[in-house]
């Protein structure tokens, strides 16, 4: 990217932040409740907490989210491509997906705890399960709707199945996969609030819920700011990935 573009992006971000803060300020003034501190209070508390308290929480949450995203990508993308490509397998699996997907995974928490213990494993598996479906369904739908012309042309070069995945299905679905990762990221972060309420005292989800239940709204909003920043950085990362991997889309 050129420095000019970067500069512009930075300015846009600044403006966006300003708008958010003004809106927040007005709302907090309007409501006048401890449940919504002013931006100043929150930023003060953010600055105070950031180095010694918030960073470790963010790091552990980041780890949980990143590992889950990685696992569900590794599992969901190939399976999604496979189902999108093979109508038969898709027709067969669709009812399975459709029946299990809408059931919120929270209810399986006790089962997971029994099977996987109360450590990081069950937390990561639970987050993974939630985003897995998202990535699976998005990838599958994208692969399903792939223009047939590309498949035909590469098949006429005598590509085998694996080649087709590599040279056609995967690159063609990559933009959709990146979209699903963006969405999955947000979803993973909201699942943090579920998985970080048991057997842990670490993680930004725990931090926020804990501040919340102890009515420390300034701390809670410091946590929310940290969460927003963490999400924003991860998004920038995904955007950069898209710029590099899908350069052909934006010609």
């Amino acid at each position: 990217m050129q420095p000019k573009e970067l500069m512009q992006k930075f300015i846009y971000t600044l403006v966006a932040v300003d708008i958010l803060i003004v809106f927040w300020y007005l709302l907090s003034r309007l409501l006048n409740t401890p449940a919504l501190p002013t931006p100043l209070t929150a930023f003060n508390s953010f600055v105070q907490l950031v180095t010694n308290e918030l960073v470790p929480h963010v790091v552990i949450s980041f780890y949980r989210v990143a590992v889950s995203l990685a696992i569900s990508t590794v599992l969901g993308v190939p399976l999604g491509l496979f189902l999108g490509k093979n109508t038969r397998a898709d027709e067969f699996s669709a009812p399975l997906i459709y029946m299990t997907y809408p059931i919120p995974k929270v209810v399986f928490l006790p089962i997971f705890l029994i099977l996987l213990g109360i450590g990081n494993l069950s937390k990561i598996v639970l987050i993974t399960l939630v985003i897995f479906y998202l990535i699976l369904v998005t990838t599958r739908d994208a692969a399903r709707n792939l223009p047939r012309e590309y498949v035909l042309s590469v098949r006429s070069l005598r590509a085998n199945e694996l080649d087709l995945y590599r040279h056609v299905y995967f690159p063609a679905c990559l933009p959709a996969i990146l979209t699903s990762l963006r969405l999955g990221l947000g979803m993973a972060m909201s699942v943090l609030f579920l998985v970080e309420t048991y057997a842990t005292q670490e993680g930004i989800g725990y931090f926020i819920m804990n501040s919340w239940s102890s009515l420390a709204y300034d701390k809670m909003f410091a946590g929310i700011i940290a969460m927003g920043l963490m999400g924003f950085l991860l998004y920038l990362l995904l955007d950069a990935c898209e710029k590099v991997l899908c350069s052909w889309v934006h010609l």
Partner: protein
Amino acid sequence: QDGKENGQENSPAKLKIGSLTTEENLPVLVAQENGYFDAEDVQVEFVPLLSPVELQNTFQSGALDGMITDMMIALMLKSSGEELRITSIALGSAPQEGRFAIVAAPKSDIKSVQDLKGKSIGISNNSIIEYVTDGILEQAGMSPSDVNKTTVAKIPVRIEMLLNNQIDAIVVPDPHISYAVANGARVVADDTSGENLSQSVIIMTQTALNSKNDAISRFYNAYARAVEEINNNPEQYKELLVTSINVPKQIADSYKVQHYPLPQLPVEEDVNNVITWLKNKGLLKADINYQDVIWGQT
């Protein structure tokens, strides 16, 4: 949101009371069922909530006139600037009321409180559960830091973890104690003896106290009548208790309706104990004292 209805003129005056589905609700339910509120010409809307955080938020949003909650939350809300007063004890005028217990996993060899040293205990933090845990430990001559407190916010999850021996012990209130025991777990200690630890209270917003003072008095008249009725015929109201507050059906048959206290204010000592505990944990925004939070005191 507040004071839209002028309690005096709009009759019958309406009180919105929020609560979790716990045993504390029984007197209100009985008063409603038996028409005691109607007789007192006060209308009570009971708002059910399934988790403490949402109860707090609903109260803070101004949608409620009052709620049944534990003392910690009442005091924390007060110190965070919420205008409210504790108007009565709901359960816990005596140690026997409102039982909390440390329950050990079926396969663990924990027999006494001392055996808990270094063991993991599932609790929810910054709550009455943690307060009671600390209290029980201290009464047994231990320090809260001797055990490994593990946060597990959801009670069902806590119980399931215990029954599957994923954790050594947990702290829960009744009826979950009975359930866990019925499934092989063991009560290590509870708060029915010794110092009075667990107290749940009914709090009202200052706004409601100002504008609906009269209705609140009549609410308590009906409430008192219901408490007497329950304490006289506990068996008669078991069915209501079991269905409306979800006593696990495995233990419903053997479950006993407990003794409820008449409306009364908590004593200063109990309140101060909680304040001290909260202060030590850094959970109080501003200093508060007994007079600030109790109804009718100035």
